[in-house]
């Protein structure tokens, strides 16, 4: 008797939680790899949005950022029946087939913080932090201003196949052709695979191979921290200028002790915040995934869906230096 009523109670409880869960949509964010602090901030945007609006959020990521390592995770989310997959893709094309499978099940696939350039038809929309076509030029200008527009520079990137990295590197290679940078020479592009140890040894190799190196652009948070660490421990901050894209929280000490004068980034937090709001609005029919349509996001204002179903959370890169770095906590 008692058993029966207990089972009935349990069943009732299960039903009520199921009913509750139905009101909320399930969003999962698949990062490039684990142990990457950049995604902590992005994830925080999702988490805090989902505390306010109707969504359940989970973060998963493979151990390594290889081209195909995200596939089992996407398959698993399809099997779990989530409503929205947000993903920072590790490959511009290896995920096409599994994206198609997810979308065939009615799942919204949004790439966040990096797109599958050339294969946009395989995802629903992309959320990019800023206009990525300007990142390369902005970074060249940044390093140029630090080294007096003269001398050898190098790039310390993440993995060779990371689409966003390659896009920016292409932008840098084009920007440097400007006569303004005629005395600057890009001598090498190396890859630290977004691993601290590999990035450190690549940075050390750069300094050994190019004794006249004046500046290093590391457009990746892992890379810039590793590069700054090398410069700091060798005490050559006045000789080699490190800049790139970094997290204020990780770079604060380097900026304060003068190892790094300035670097850039956007707010990854806002990407997660925007993605969660858009996901809920799309599922509720409040927003339409059409080029030119707009929607409102608290704190960010009116956001427009640009050509190629692409959305930017901010219009230009933010530059961090000793004066403003304390204002940022991500």
């Amino acid at each position, binding site marked *: 008797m008692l058993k029966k009523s207990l089972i009935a109670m349990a069943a009732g409880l299960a039903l009520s939680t199921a009913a509750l869960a139905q009101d909320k949509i399930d969003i999962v964010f698949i990062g490039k790899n*684990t142990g990457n602090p950049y995604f902590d901030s992005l994830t925080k945007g999702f988490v805090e949005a989902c505390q306010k609006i109707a969504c359940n959020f*989970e973060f*998963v*990521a*493979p*151990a390594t950022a*290889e*081209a*195909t390592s995200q*596939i*089992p*995770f996407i*398959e*698993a989310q399809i*099997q*779990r*029946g989530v409503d929205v997959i947000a993903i920072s893709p590790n*490959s*511009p*094309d*290896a995920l*096409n*087939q599994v994206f198609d499978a997810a979308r065939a099940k009615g799942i919204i696939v949004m790439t966040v913080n990096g797109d599958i350039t050339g294969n946009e038809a395989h995802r629903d929309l992309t959320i990019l932090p800023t206009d990525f076509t300007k990142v390369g030029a902005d970074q060249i200008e940044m390093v140029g201003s630090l080294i007096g527009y003269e001398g050898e520079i190098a790039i310390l990137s993440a993995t*060779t*196949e990371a689409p966003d990295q*390659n896009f920016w590197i292409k932008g840098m290679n084009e920007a440097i052709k400007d006569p303004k940078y005629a005395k600057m020479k890009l001598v090498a592009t190396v890859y630290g695979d977004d691993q601290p140890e590999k990035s450190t040894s690549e940075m050390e190799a750069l300094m050994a191979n190019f004794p006249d190196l004046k500046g290093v652009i590391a457009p990746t948070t892992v890379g810039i921290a590793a590069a700054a660490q090398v410069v700091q421990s060798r005490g050559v901050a006045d000789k080699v200028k490190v800049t790139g894209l970094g997290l204020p929280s990780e770079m604060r000490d380097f900026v304060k002790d003068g190892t790094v004068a300035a670097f850039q980034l956007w707010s990854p937090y806002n990407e997660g915040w925007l993605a969660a709001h858009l996901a809920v609005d799309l599922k509720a029919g409040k927003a339409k995934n059409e080029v030119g349509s707009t929607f409102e996001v608290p704190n960010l204002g009116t956001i427009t869906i640009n050509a190629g179903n692409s959305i930017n959370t901010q219009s230009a890169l933010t530059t961090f230096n000793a004066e403003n770095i304390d204002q940022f906590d991500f």
Partner: protein
Amino acid sequence: MSAAETTPQRIAGRGAAPQRSLWHVILVRPETMTLVLLVLAVILASQLSPFFLDISYILRSFTLSAEFAIVALVLTMVIIAGEIDLSPAANMALSTCLFAWAQASGVPMPIAIAIGLVAGLAMGALNAFMVIGLQLPSIIVTIGTLTLYRGLAQIIAGDKSIRMPEWFIGIDKVLVFGVPATVAIFVVVSLVLGLILAGTIFGRQIYQIGTNEVAARYAGIRTRRIKLILFLLMGLAAAIAGMLTASRLGSVRYDLGLGGELQMVLMAMLGGTYIFGGRGTILGTFLAAWLLVVVSTGMTVANLLPAIQLTVLGVLLIVAIIATNLIYSRAQR
């Protein structure tokens, strides 16, 4: 424990008639351990997540490792013969890059496939030449060619990916009696190789080579020829596996199958293949492939952290190796 202490025991053991009951013969085998682990893994995984126990999902997940699993079957035979080949994943990349490159530059598909297969065979032949002809240890040779083949693949394909034609994409979505085609291929290859290894003279000779190569040679077994066949088979299997991967992913890149050699060795080891040769079965590797898929899929669908997944896989491998060694040392004496 010193050798002197164990010797009398061993002699006594050998002197007594082997009193082994049927259950002893069946149970004290590495494959049994793999099977038990597989059953346990299925039970645990279905406890971990309500989404796990869905046969079509498990089969779909198997397609992600099926290409490696197919090569692991051949690798099992190579290991039993006392050699190892760590180059197959790089071979997959190079042969498939050559195939895709030929195909993209207008060569008809059948010829492009032939180019890929011949390339795979040639890479197997190069390994065989150095191991058999030059008498170099296969572990060193294939670590070398693993790097070489991957490097060549990158030279050919660069950092770009080569698209596959639309009709070529999706062999893993083709169902054969309700089973994805690549999984079906794996099952058929398992059956064929299992029969060859266990039921033919060729198969028995592989075991003899792995147990004692010198003795095998004196017994008139053409050890060099058999090893050559195995390395060639390895190259062929890798090329086929590479093309299956290309069909699944829809594009080819030099990093295709990166790190796959470890998964292949893991499958063979988990299935109870003895790393020093002479022992192991296709059934063991077959079961181990499923075990690996069940374990990793079960943890992924439960949204467990990769760090936990790696730890579990590591523990699993160590348990398997200890158990295999224990079982073989008992069964032998």
